[in-house]
């Protein structure tokens, strides 16, 4: 009975979404306030219905209700409770429900925090989000219903959650990523609303800016968590594989990054209006494309689980409707967008244009590389695959170009900044970063790597330029405390994010160029050298976990003669599914991670063992954390609340004159 409540709530949410898509839009077009006013209550109701539906599914997992097929497929009596909770979004149907829930959640936040926005505008925004919701809920109800039952012969036990996903990283990775993916729908909805209403000045940019920033912050953290999870759970020790599904999240991230920067120009200077609209459409369309790539199984990937052509066709159709519809509307209306005036060739806006240009090229090239196998297959060219060499060859130089320009933007002034004195601090920055960069590989010892030198110089270039900008502001305001209190929060956010990118670049450069990595055959009593350490295998035992049996090796790591640490990597075999999983032992440190993983059992009791030293690998994710933090700090700016008041006053004044 209880699962039917969830099913019913889902159907109800679908009906509400249809109303939400239709009524406010009709109200706007026919100029009837009453219909517009339904938007907010409907958005709240939809959120409530989906929360009930989601709660019921989670209850099914916690209560071991194996009569629900989705629970039976993805849970097990032995599965610990926290993994039973995260199992809700561990497979196709449930992750779609999470998607829909988060979309509804963003709708609720728009309904609650849009008091400063004219009612007809928020009505249109919620209506567009309702349309997206209709598509997703229809997809769930018609092709991927999580509440399908196995009755009357329901299994006594479930098939278990994919062991790859039985990990704390998975509890947070999908919700974070979806908050980002789906959060971009708000910026999209604002862009569509302004296109529908024809009010194409820069106000929509101001409204959608905090939403875009917060979605970007979630997306950043979501991608970083995914990368971290792949690093320690997939047992390969890599942090990025250019897997199609990773690319599917990176592409919207690149476009969202571009959007964030162009929104700044549109808000502050009113420029690039039509371009910003296009980016907002592109960012969300690409996150839909990402969902399509993940969910349809058209690509060979870690995430592409079961193939189902029917689902693929549905999402493809939905994608065509969303992208086709929004671009058509754009094509009709964009000619009416007025671009006020020109801009100087050396100005903050020109550097942000440069940023947008490079980020767009990056997104397009990753997109091309990801879709190329599909395109070739579609025209009958056979099966091909595009691997990391391609992506590295294209992505790395573009990043270098992007980063080279990054130092100028924050120092430049809006409108025009031809005064060369503004950029004088960069001369010192340039000298320091180049000198330290060139010296760095020599300090490390070993073979000199010019790639490391360039990479480290670029990371320093951004980090020092960011510090210079900060110090300049401190000089201006007199004191660190006053500076942090007085400058726009967006500025602090930018410092954090740019600094974070420098950390990430440094981590990537070090890991990619200086990882020491060996696959070996080892038995009990064997010792191997690993960087400055000696690794001795002392024991092999069998461990019984809650729902798995593991072979566990004990390694003692010696630094000289002193025992530094004892670690125990495992090779687990999960009882229910029989799947084998590697649990690597990782000793994390600021300057390096020691990574020991068990490969496979060999004859004579030996094991294949993977040993690596990964220098500065954690800096990659620390950098992403700073970027995300920057995003969250930005949206706390009080002007987003102040503006609301001004807007009302301005609106009142306008109303009075009209």
């Amino acid at each position, binding site marked *: 009975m209880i699962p039917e409540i969830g099913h019913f709530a889902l159907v109800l949410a679908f009906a509400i979404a249809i109303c939400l898509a239709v009524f406010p839009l009709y109200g706007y077009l026919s100029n009837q306030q009453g219909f517009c006013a339904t938007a907010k209550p409907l958005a709240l109701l939809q959120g409530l219905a989906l929360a009930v539906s989601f709660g019921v599914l989670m209850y099914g997992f916690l209560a071991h209700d194996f009569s629900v097929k989705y629970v039976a497929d993805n849970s097990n009596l032995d599965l610990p409770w926290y993994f039973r909770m995260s199992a809700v979004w561990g497979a196709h149907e449930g992750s779609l429900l999470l998607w829909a829930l988060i979309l509804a959640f963003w709708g609720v936040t728009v309904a609650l925090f849009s008091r400063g926005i004219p009612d007809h505008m928020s009505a249109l925004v919620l209506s567009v989000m309702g349309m997206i919701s209709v598509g997703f809920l229809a997809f769930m109800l018609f092709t991927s219903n999580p509440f399908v039952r196995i009755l009357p012969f329901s299994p006594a036990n479930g098939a278990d959650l994919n062991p790859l996903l039985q990990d704390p990283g998975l509890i947070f990775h999908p919700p974070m990523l979806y908050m980002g993916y789906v959060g971009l729908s708000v910026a999209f909805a604002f862009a569509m609303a302004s296109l529908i209403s024809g009010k194409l000045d820069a106000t929509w940019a101001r409204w959608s800016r905090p939403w875009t920033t917060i979605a970007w912050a979630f997306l950043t953290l979501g991608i970083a968590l995914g990368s971290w999870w792949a690093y320690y759970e997939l047992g390969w020790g890599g942090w990025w594989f250019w897997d199609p599904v990773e690319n599917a999240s990176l592409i919207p991230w690149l476009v969202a990054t571009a959007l964030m920067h162009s929104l700044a120009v549109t808000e502050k200077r009113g420029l690039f209006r039509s371009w910003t609209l296009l980016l907002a459409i592109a960012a969300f369309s690409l996150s839909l494309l990402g969902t399509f790539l993940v969910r349809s199984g058209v690509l060979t990937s870690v995430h592409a689980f079961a193939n189902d052509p029917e689902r693929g066709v549905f999402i493809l159709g939905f994608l065509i409707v969303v992208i086709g519809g929004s671009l058509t509307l754009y094509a009709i209306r964009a000619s009416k967008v007025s671009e006020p005036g020109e801009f100087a060739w050396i100005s903050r806006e020109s550097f942000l244009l440069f940023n947008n240009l490079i980020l767009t090229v990056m997104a397009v090239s990753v997109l091309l*590389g990801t879709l190329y196998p599909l395109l070739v297959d579609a025209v009958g060219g056979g099966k091909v695959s595009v691997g990391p060499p*391609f992506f590295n060859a294209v992505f790395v130089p573009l990043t270098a170009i992007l980063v080279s320009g990054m130092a100028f933007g924050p120092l430049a002034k809006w409108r025009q900044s031809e005064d060369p004195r503004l950029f004088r601090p960069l001369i010192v920055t340039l000298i320091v970063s180049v000198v330290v960069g060139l010296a760095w590989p020599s300090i490390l010892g070993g073979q000199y790597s010019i790639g490391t030198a360039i990479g480290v110089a670029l990371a320093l270039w951004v980090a020092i330029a960011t510090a210079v900008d900060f110090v300049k502001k401190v000089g201006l305001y007199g004191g660190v405390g006053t500076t942090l209190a007085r400058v726009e929060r967006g500025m602090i956010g930018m410092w954090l994010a740019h600094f974070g990118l420098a950390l990430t670049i440094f981590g990537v450069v070090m890991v990619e160029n200086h990882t020491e990595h060996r696959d070996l055959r080892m038995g009990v009593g064997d010792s191997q050298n690993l960087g400055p350490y000696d690794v001795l295998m002392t024991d092999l035992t069998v461990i019984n976990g809650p729902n798995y049996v593991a072979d566990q090796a004990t390694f003692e790591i010696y630094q000289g003669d002193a025992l530094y640490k004892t670690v125990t990597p495992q090779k687990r075999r999960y009882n229910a599914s029989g799947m084998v999983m590697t649990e690597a032992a990782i000793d994390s440190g600021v300057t390096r991670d020691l990574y020991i993983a068990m490969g496979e059992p060999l004859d004579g009791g030996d094991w294949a063992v993977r040993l690596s030293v990964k220098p500065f690998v954690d800096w990659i994710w620390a950098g992403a954390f700073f970027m995300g933090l920057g995003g969250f700090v930005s949206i706390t700016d009080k002007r987003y609340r102040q503006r609301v008041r001004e807007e009302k006053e301005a609106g009142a004044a306008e109303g009075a004159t009209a």
Partner: protein
Amino acid sequence: MNPKRKQRMLIILGLVSGLGVAVGLVMYALSQNINLFFTPSQIATGQAPSAQLIRVGGMVADGTVDRDPQSLKVAFDVTDFDHQVRVTYEGILPDLFREGQGVVVQGRINQGQFVASEVLAKHDENYMPPEVTEALRQSGKLDQIKGGQQQ
């Protein structure tokens, strides 16, 4: 032409030429870095180029996995049930590598043997890499697998 138009023209020209160059470079990089896919039958009948990095997909034939007792060297046959190819590899095989399961290997043909630089096994019990499905479809043996696999 007024200055505003002129600037817009310059930007558009810059964008178009920049994107053109980028797409050109991307296409060039793609042509240098794509890995073509072949079935075991195609390799057995000599249709695959030697010394070029390619991918082969199929099932790991039962009872063909041979390990070197001293090192991490391993050899196995990949089959589409028409022909099979001997694959050699040195390193750690993925967790889901098993006899009778689908696998995709990437590497080069060297003197009739396929020397793999990478072995990819599926990540999920019910998931079959599209390449393997394709190889089995071409050899007409797809039913053999579908029937034998639990769904």
